[in-house]
C-alpha cells in the first residue's frame, strides 16, 4: 500500500549505456531553418534514471525522439552530433538497423496514453506484435508474453484484459499497457516522454512506483522527460535541465535541488508550488521561452535572467564542469551563489 522510497543511486555497475554528444536538430519553419537543438550532450548509464527537465519548447521531447530517429522529417533534420548506443552511432546506422533497435533495445513511452495506443487493435495484439517482430515468436508466444508483461505492470486479470481494446481501459491502465509494451523485449533503455502529465496525481504516483520497481527488477535505464521538478525529485538519480534547445545544467538530483548552478534552474526551483503555506506572491521567471527562429545571441536564457550582464550576450556560453559529476552553462558560473529548493 505504501512505500518509503529513497532514491537509490545505482552504484558500482554504472557502465555507460547511451551517450549523446553535440546533437543538433533543425526544423523548417516559415521563418526558415530554426535551430531546435543546439548541441545537446548527455549520457545515461545502465539502470540509471535520468530526468530531462524543461518548459514546453525547451527541446526535451525532440531530444527523446532523436535517439530513436523519430523526429518527423520533414520538417526536422539532424544537422550534427552523435548518439552512441555502446559503440554504435545511431545517427549513422541504416534505417533497418534502427528498426531493430526500436522497441527492442530502446523503447519509448509517450505522454498521451489515450492517443498513443491504436484504437483499432486490442492491447494484447499491440504488445505481442512488438515481441513477435523482435523475437520472431509465434502469435501464441506473443500473446503469452503480452499477458506476462501486463501482469508485470499490475493489470488485474491480464489473461482476459489482453483481449480488450484501448478504449476499454482507463487512462492509468492505458499508460500501464504502454509501459508493458515498452518492456516486452527487455530493453536496456526506456525513453519516457512526460508519461504522467496527462494523469491524475494518484495515478501518477502509481506509475512512478511502477517505473521504480521496473528499474529495480529489470535494471532498465530510463530517460524521464518531464516539466515537473517534483516528479524528478521523487524518481530520478540524475537531472539534465534544458532551455532553448541546450543543456544548461546537469547534476545528481540531490545536488541540483540543494545547490543549482544555473539561474534557470534556480528560477524553476523557486517557481515550484510548495505544499507548505499560502505565500503572498509566487515566484516566476519573467518573459517567455524564445521561439527557435528567434534565439537570443550569446546565452539563450540571457533576456530572462536576473543575473544578466552585457557580456552574457556577446558569445555563446559553453557547458562547463561545475563540481563533481556536474556541469552548467553560465558565463558567471564562478561568481554566482544560487538558491536551492526549500
Amino acid at each position, binding site marked *: *500500500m505504501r512505500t518509503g522510497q529513497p*532514491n537509490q543511486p545505482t552504484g558500482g555497475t554504472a557502465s555507460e549505456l547511451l551517450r549523446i554528444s553535440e546533437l543538433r536538430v533543425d526544423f523548417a519553419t516559415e521563418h526558415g531553418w530554426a535551430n531546435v537543438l543546439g548541441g545537446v550532450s548527455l549520457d545515461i548509464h545502465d539502470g540509471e534514471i535520468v530526468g530531462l527537465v524543461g518548459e514546453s519548447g525547451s527541446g526535451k521531447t525532440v531530444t527523446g525522439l532523436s535517439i530513436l530517429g523519430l523526429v518527423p522529417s520533414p520538417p526536422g533534420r539532424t544537422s550534427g552530433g552523435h548518439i552512441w548506443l555502446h559503440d554504435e552511432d545511431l545517427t549513422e546506422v541504416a534505417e533497418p538497423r534502427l528498426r531493430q533497435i526500436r522497441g527492442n533495445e530502446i523503447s519509448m513511452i509517450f505522454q498521451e496514453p489515450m492517443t498513443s495506443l491504436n484504437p483499432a487493435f486490442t492491447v494484447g495484439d499491440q504488445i505481442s506484435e512488438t515481441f513477435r517482430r523482435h523475437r520472431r515468436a509465434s502469435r501464441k508466444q506473443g500473446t503469452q508474453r503480452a499477458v506476462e508483461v501486463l501482469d508485470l505492470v499490475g493489470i488485474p486479470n491480464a489473461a482476459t484484459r489482453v483481449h480488450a481494446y484501448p478504449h476499454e481501459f482507463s487512462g492509468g491502465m492505458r499508460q500501464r499497457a504502454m509501459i508493458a509494451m515498452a518492456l516486452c523485449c527487455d530493453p536496456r533503455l526506456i525513453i519516457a516522454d512526460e508519461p504522467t502529465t496527462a494523469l491524475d496525481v494518484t495515478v501518477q504516483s502509481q506509475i512512478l512506483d511502477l517505473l521504480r520497481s521496473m528499474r529495480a527488477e529489470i535494471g532498465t535505464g530510463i530517460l524521464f522527460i518531464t516539466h515537473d521538478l*517534483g516528479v524528478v525529485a*521523487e524518481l530520478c538519480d540524475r537531472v539534465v535541465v534544458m532551455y532553448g534547445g541546450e543543456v544548461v545544467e546537469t547534476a545528481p538530483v540531490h545536488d541540483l535541488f540543494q545547490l543549482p548552478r544555473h539561474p534557470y534552474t534556480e528560477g524553476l526551483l523557486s517557481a515550484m*508550488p510548495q505544499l507548505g503555506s*499560502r505565500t503572498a506572491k509566487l515566484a516566476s521567471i519573467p518573459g517567455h521561452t524564445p521561439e527557435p527562429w528567434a534565439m537570443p545571441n550569446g546565452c539563450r536564457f540571457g533576456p530572462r535572467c536576473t543575473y544578466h550582464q552585457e557580456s552574457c550576450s556577446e558569445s555563446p556560453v559553453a557547458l562547463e564542469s561545475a563540481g563533481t559529476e556536474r556541469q552548467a552553462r553560465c558565463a558567471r558560473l564562478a561568481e554566482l551563489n544560487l538558491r536551492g529548493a*526549500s
Partner: protein
Amino acid sequence: MTASDTDPLVRVRGLNVTFAQKRLLGPTRSVRAVHDIDFDIGRGETLGLVGESGSGKSTTGRALLRLVPVESGSVQLAGQELTKLRGGELRKLRAAMQMVFQDPYSSLDPSTTVGASITEPFRVHQGLSRNQAWPRVLELLELVGLPASHANRYPYEFSGGQRQRIAIARALALHPKLIVCDEAVSALDVSTQNQVINLLEELRAEFELSYLFIAHDLAVVRHIAHRVAVMYLGRLVEVGPAERVYERPAHPYTEALLSAIPVPNPQRAGERERIVLHGDLPDPADPPAGCPFQNRCGYAMDICRESMPPMTEVADGGTVACHLQTTGPRLAGAVLRDANLSVGSGQ
C-alpha cells in the same frame, strides 16, 4: 479573508446534477455527476475545489453558473436563488458570475479579434457598440498585463498564458462578484502558472472578488485558496480551512491525494511516507455501496460498505464525511495505519 457581510456570497445546498446517457437499445444510463453537495463561498474568499478527473468538480462549477441543468438543490448568490431563474433574468444575473476555462486555446473564438471578444459582455449587458466599449476593452487588457495594442490581434497570435489573461479580462468586464476558475492554470508551464495566479490574487484584492478555484493540482490550490473542498465520485468528502486540510487531512482520500503530490525536494521526498491508492476511480454510473471511497480506502470498516457517512464537524475546522470521524477512531495517523497495513499492503 474579508467578511463584510455575515452571509456568504454563494450558498449551495443539496445540489444534484444528473446526466442521462441515452442508448439506442437497452436502458438509459444515468450518471449522478454531482451528489448532494453543500458549500458556501464568502465574500472575497477563494474556495479551492479539488479532486481527480471524473470527480464532478468541473460539473459543480458549471452548475453554479447554470451551464448544466441542475436536477435539484439550491444555489444562492447574495441571497438570490439561481436555480429557478429563467431566460432574461438568468442572463442578467450571469453578469455577476463569470468563468475562466481550462483550455486557453478554445475559450476564445478563433474567428474574431481578442478585442472583439472582450467587447461581448459590454454589448450584451450594457448595449454598447464596439466603438463605445473600446476604451474599456483597452483598459481591461492593461489591467491583466497585456499591451492595449494587442486588442486587434487574433487569439492564435498569443501564448497560452496570454490567452488566459485575455479570458480573465473578459470575465472581469462587468465587475462580477464571483469568478469560477475551471482548471484555469493547469495547461500552463509552472512559471506562467504562477504569473496567472499572482494576477488572480491581485485582482481579488482589488475588486473584492470571490473565486471558486477548481483544480486537480493540490499544490497550486494551496497557494490561492482560503478554504478547500475535496470531491470524490460526485460527493464532497471534506471541506475546511486550507491550513487545516493540508496539515491535518480528516478524510483518508484527502490524505492519499496529498501524499501523492510529488515533493520537489529529493531529501524530503525520500523521507516521506506515501500512500499509493490502488485501482481506478469507480464507474460513476455504478458507484460502490456505502461510502464511495470504501473500495480503495486503507481504513475501510464494515460500516463503510453499508452506509454513506454523514457530514460531521472536524474539531479544528471544517467538515468531513467519514465514518472514522463518527463511529471509528479519529484519523490520527500512524497507529491506525500500521494496524491496517497488513490488510492492504501489496508492495
